[in-house]
């Protein structure tokens, strides 16, 4: 190649012709083209991913809006209001049962024999209380169940109709296609056509010779036989007949009429509630007659009474809420958006209403990330400072590659370790007798936010460590020298000069570690416990040991089993979009921090 560039006209000076390697380009421009096109490909792929994500997610709001509208029109929303009271009552029943089992435990602890215990809990007063309370609500439960069934039926019928309409729509399109002259029969078409002809020939309303003709036609169709205009028309006609049959099965739902089946009997419901109040008051009053012989249990019974009073006093508000419910109130698209962004439930494949609320997933993701960062920041940044400033060369050469090696462990291996070793260890540890003074011990779940957070910390440490170490390493040596020359100790130099100067780099390292943590999927899927519920922050530190679900986890878990294009499918894409924006913001912030605060020297 070099030789070719020498072949210049001897009469001209050497600079008169550019050196060319390939297609008239020199090596510099070839390299430039190569890397430039690589960058271009990366940008295009990123753009395609973004477009795909948005395209798939885009339909979500519309579909969810429609779903919420149907929720209101079918009266399911009304039923959910009805259910509130039933839930309250169930909650109270559970509380009473709790008291009962505590009482039994206490009797056992005080050394009572089995017979004595039975005698105590089955004496008439106790029985009247515990059993009476449970029985009192049966009318309420029945009533709510009936109404719920009505509403579900309406909703189901409506959904079926929608599906049938879609099918009919598909038929219409198909027929239009077949009627165009350029249409050719495919193998499937021939099979379908034959089938339709045979079916039609069995139609009793047809004259027999006509039926015979159809049958003959059906028999004559072979894969080779050419089909003409007449065939296309017959095929279209037969398909049209089929579509008509399907259309006939649609039983239109008139929400205005059907709703009456749900919202009628309000007077009866009021009666049921009133009767419940009376009977519960009676039952609760019997509690005074029961000999609990335990101040703790009696205190709980007192609380129970208060809770009951609350339950009764809410009845009027509940009735008013039901009376004010309006089927025809419009659902705005913003309500759909806020139902997604601030919704507290993520319920899928439910027989009533599916809910796609981001909050349980977002709070789970953030809780786990917070736990991970609490561990990863001190370890990652601390190790970076230690390795760069304090450790000797031998230690440095040992620690650095090993910390960076952690990031080479596949996340599924870390997750596996978390399930089998770490989660077990935490539960075992929390059950040790010596640690029962810790308020939230023993923990019940082996897989929880804390387990996942600790393992994610392990994954974030190499990221934070490497980037923070780089940032510290980039601090010019003369800052350190200047500080030491003034009589500062190495520790003072590190804490007062090196770390403040490297702070922007350290913060961006932390941000990128955060990005790593919030986007991690495998570990959270395996170790976070996957319970879709907003963590109960009122529990104090116990909240860290609750199982949670995450945004990444839900996508990985549910994407495999959703119908493409369904509301659920699009909801998962919406979660992906939210995740995408969170990562984008994190990365952008990291870059901004570096730019804004790294005005180092010259």
């Amino acid at each position: 190649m070099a030789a070719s560039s020498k072949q210049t006209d001897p009469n001209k000076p050497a600079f008169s012709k550019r050196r060319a390697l390939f297609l008239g380009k020199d090596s510099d421009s070839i390299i430039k083209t190569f890397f430039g096109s690589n960058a271009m490909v990366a940008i295009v792929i990123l753009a395609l991913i973004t477009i795909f994500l948005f395209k798939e997610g885009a339909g979500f709001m519309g579909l969810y809006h429609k779903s919420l509208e149907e929720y209101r029109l079918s009266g399911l929303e009304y039923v959910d209001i009805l259910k509130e009271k039933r839930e309250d009552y169930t909650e109270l029943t559970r509380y009473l049962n709790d008291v009962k089992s505590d009482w039994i435990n206490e009797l056992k602890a005080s050394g009572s024999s089995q017979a004595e215990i039975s005698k105590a809990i089955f004496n008439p007063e106790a029985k009247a209380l515990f059993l009476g309370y449970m029985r009192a609500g049966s009318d309420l439960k029945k009533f709510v169940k009936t109404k719920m069934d009505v509403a579900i039926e309406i909703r189901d019928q409506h959904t079926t109709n929608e599906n049938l309409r879609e099918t009919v729509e598909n038929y219409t399109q198909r027929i239009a296609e077949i009627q165009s002259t350029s249409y050719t029969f495919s193998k499937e078409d021939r099979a379908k056509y034959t089938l339709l002809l045979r079916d039609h020939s069995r139609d009793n309303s047809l004259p027999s010779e006509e039926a015979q003709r159809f049958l003959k036609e059906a028999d004559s169709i072979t894969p080779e036989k050419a089909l003409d205009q007449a065939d296309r028309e017959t095929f279209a006609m037969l398909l049209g007949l089929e579509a008509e049959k399907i259309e006939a099965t649609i039983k239109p739902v008139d929400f205005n009429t059907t709703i009456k089946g749900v919202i009628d009997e309000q007077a009866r419901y009021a009666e049921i509630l009133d009767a419940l109040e009376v009977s519960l008051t009676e039952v609760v009053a019997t509690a005074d007659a029961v000999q609990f012989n335990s101040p703790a249990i009696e205190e709980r019974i007192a609380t129970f009474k208060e809770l009951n009073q609350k339950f009764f006093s809410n009845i009027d508000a509940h009735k008013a809420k039901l009376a004010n419910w309006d089927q025809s109130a419009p659902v705005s698209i913003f309500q759909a958006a806020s139902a997604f962004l601030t919704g507290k439930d993520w319920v899928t494949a439910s027989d009533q209403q599916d809910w796609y609320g981001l909050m349980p997933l977002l709070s789970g993701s953030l809780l786990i990330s917070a736990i991970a960062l609490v561990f990863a920041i001190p370890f990652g940044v601390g190790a970076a400072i230690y390795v760069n400033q304090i450790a000797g060369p031998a230690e440095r050469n040992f620690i650095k590659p090993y910390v960076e090696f952690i990031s080479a462990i596949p996340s599924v291996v870390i997750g596996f370790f978390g399930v089998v070793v770490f989660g077990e260890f935490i539960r075992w540890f929390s059950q040790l007798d010596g640690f029962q003074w810790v308020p939230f011990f023993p923990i019940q779940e082996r897989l929880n936010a804390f387990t996942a957070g600790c393992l994610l910390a392990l994954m974030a440490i190499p990221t934070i460590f490497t980037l923070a170490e780089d940032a510290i390493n980039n601090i010019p040596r003369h800052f350190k020298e200047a500080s030491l020359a003034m009589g500062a100790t190495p520790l003072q130099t590190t804490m007062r000069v090196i770390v403040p100067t490297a702070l922007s780099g350290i913060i961006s390292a932390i941000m990128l570690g955060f990005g790593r943590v919030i986007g991690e999927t495998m570990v959270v899927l395996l170790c976070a416990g996957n319970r879709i519920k907003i963590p109960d922050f009122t529990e104090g530190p116990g909240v860290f040991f609750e199982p949670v679900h995450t945004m990444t986890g839900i996508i990985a878990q549910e994407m495999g089993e959703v119908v493409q294009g369904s509301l659920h499918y699009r909801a998962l894409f919406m979660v992906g979009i939210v995740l995408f924006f969170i990562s984008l913001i994190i990365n952008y912030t990291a870059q901004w921090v570096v730019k804004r605060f790294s005005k180092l020297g010259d």
Partner: protein
Amino acid sequence: MAQTSTPITTSENSQPPIIEIRNFDFAYGDSQALFDINMDIKEKEVTAFIGPSGCGKSTFLRCFNRMNDLIDIARIKGGEIKISGVNIYDKDIDVIELRKHVGMVFQKSNPFPKSIYDNIAYGLRIQGVKKKSTLDDVVEECLRGAALWDEVKDRLNESALGMSGGQQQRLCIARALAVRPKILLMDEPCSALDPIATAKVEELIHELKKDYTIVIVTHNMQQAARVSDRTAFFYLGKLIEFENTDDIFMNPKNPQTEAYISGRFG
């Protein structure tokens, strides 16, 4: 090793030396950088080290406050450096205190990326001084001492990195003064400055001479001639000649010195 050659000293000054160097050998790993240096540096004088690049003058300077400790492969092969009669390479030496005693100004101005005020106050803060009034007083005193006060008194809380190069270097001198050293080492302090800024720093050195012993490394011979009382010429890690500045420039005894001064090599 302990052969005692007579230290090269200048004759007429009779006060005791503040820094005494005896048979000093220094090496980076296997390559020896300084050979058998003997020298006395007198109090409240300016001593200049000159010599071609790589002759070991900066290395030697950094031995006085043990900055070479930061380099893993640096080691003392023999001899001693005494400051105020104490061998600074003794194993009982508190290096932190030594560095407070022997301040240093570097070739490249290196203010911390903090405010002007915080730069000066740093030396005191690391010693645990928190009182605002004390800090204020010292900052003003040091900035006045470095002839910088009038230029920056209105922008003490602005970043030191916004100052000009000459101002930054004088700030570094002021910062070094804040810990009240007895000796001030300057490692080519003007090499990155323009002539006007250089003149200001030289003027400052002249002022500081009243209170501090100054050792300055320079490869600008005119500067050595202008600011120093005594000049030492180093070549290939050896001290060739150490004389009164006037003598060394007017009447060098060693032919190598003469060759260097007259610009025939280096």
